[in-house]
């Protein structure tokens, strides 16, 4: 991370964005987030969700995965995850950062931020 990236203009955008985010989030209900698995990767490396949101994992890969989290208090193990299947996890918990990974392919990693 270079400091140049955090130019004042950008910070202004961030602040504006957060204010915006604050107002929109107040009205938003629990959402579903869809995260794919293809070519031994999650479709996104990180994702922000809100308490109460649901994350649906979809295996659009050609091989079996095993999606787990060993983050304290936020553990789950989605078991054998065949191609074509989808499985959901709801995050009713407090704020937190969840490290999600595949036990078959440890390079498959995803970080969920619960705000």
């Amino acid at each position: 991370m270079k400091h140049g990236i955090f130019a004042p203009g950008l910070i202004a955008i961030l602040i504006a964005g957060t204010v915006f985010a604050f107002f929109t989030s107040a009205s938003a209900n629990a959402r579903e987030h869809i995260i794919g698995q293809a070519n031994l990767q999650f479709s996104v490396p990180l994702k922000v969700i809100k308490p109460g949101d649901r994350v649906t994992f979809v295996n659009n890969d050609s091989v079996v995965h095993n999606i787990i989290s060993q983050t304290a208090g936020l553990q789950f193990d989605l078991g054998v995850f065949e191609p074509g299947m989808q499985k959901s996890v709801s995050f009713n918990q407090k704020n937190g950062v969840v490290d999600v990974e595949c036990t078959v392919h440890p390079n498959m990693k995803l970080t969920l931020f619960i705000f």
Partner: protein
Amino acid sequence: MCYLSRIKAVLGLGRLFHQTRSLMWFFAFFIIVFNTFPANTFPVGPSPTSQPFHLSLLNLIPAANAATGVNGVSRSDWLLPKVAPSPENNKMDKKKAELGKMLFFDPRLSGDGRTSCATCHDPALGWSDGLTTATGHNGIRLPRATLSIVNVGFNKILMWDGRNIQLEEQAIEPIFNPVEMNNTEQNLLKTLRSIPGYVKAFKEAYWGLGVSSNRVARSLAMYQRQVVSVNSPFAKWIRGNESAMTESQKRGFEVFIDTNRGNCITCHRPPNFMDNGFHNIGLLSFKNKKPDLGRFSQKKVNMTKGAFRTPTLWNIAETAPYFHDGSAKNLRQVLNHYISGGKTRTNLSPNMKVLRLKPEEQKDLIAFLNALTGEIDQKLTQFTLPR
């Protein structure tokens, strides 16, 4: 030690995030902004309005099924460079790699001065040892087979159970392992510092700095990144030389990548014929009273019990016997195992299936595996040990 932690820090976003929480929160801050805006606030390519932002991203992921079926795999997927890529903090350098070569072949690195890396990773035996399972210090029988180091530089996770990530981190372990080379750091440094040839070589390679175990590891890693299989019939064929493989070998490749026939591609993926993944392929030894649990030792989850890391298949014809327990004497027995779909069903990988292969298809598949044998640069085995 500081060096090791630095390697770990640059191992990629994922790991960085797992370690640097504060940076992560900062990112998260940015992303929450992105996530809460309606989909069309920041248009990213064509995105049908009926889909939420993240779904349209999903659609943009190219080649979701690139590795499936006969048609999904292109020859160029298997192309590999002549030397494996090196990390930012250990860039390929001729002098360092030459030093690594001497270290690799030098038995003086071991406690009793009799075992070198090459004792177990013997170039004449496909950079492995030809044994069912390895023989360690004082003739002790080790529980697992020696992995070949051919093309090891392309692997993103090392060892049968994935207990190491980077070659720099792995290289020093066998030297201090009591059942392998049984040396101590103190004794290793004392030995190397007493050999003027080494003192000179370290100085020349490392900007005037002397012997250290850190630099031993860096040089060994660098040397191993050069051990790459080239000019095999298959390597020539993927570069467009149609006659490099026989017709039988070409048919064998089709069987290999066809998920309805060989299904090998499911785990032995391009370009290094492996997936940096862990699978329980149902070997008989998993029926033992106290079986080797493999990956489970590193990651305590049901799925990892009896799962081992997929090995590369480049130069595979040279490294019999096969599997982590050495239970297959030759490639024929390997294939028979896969045809059975796994002999132990407990915790068997769901990616394994009973194969229905015609006798000709079986012959072709084995012929193809033989087409993966290439040459290793001769210079990598020519050395004189320093005095």
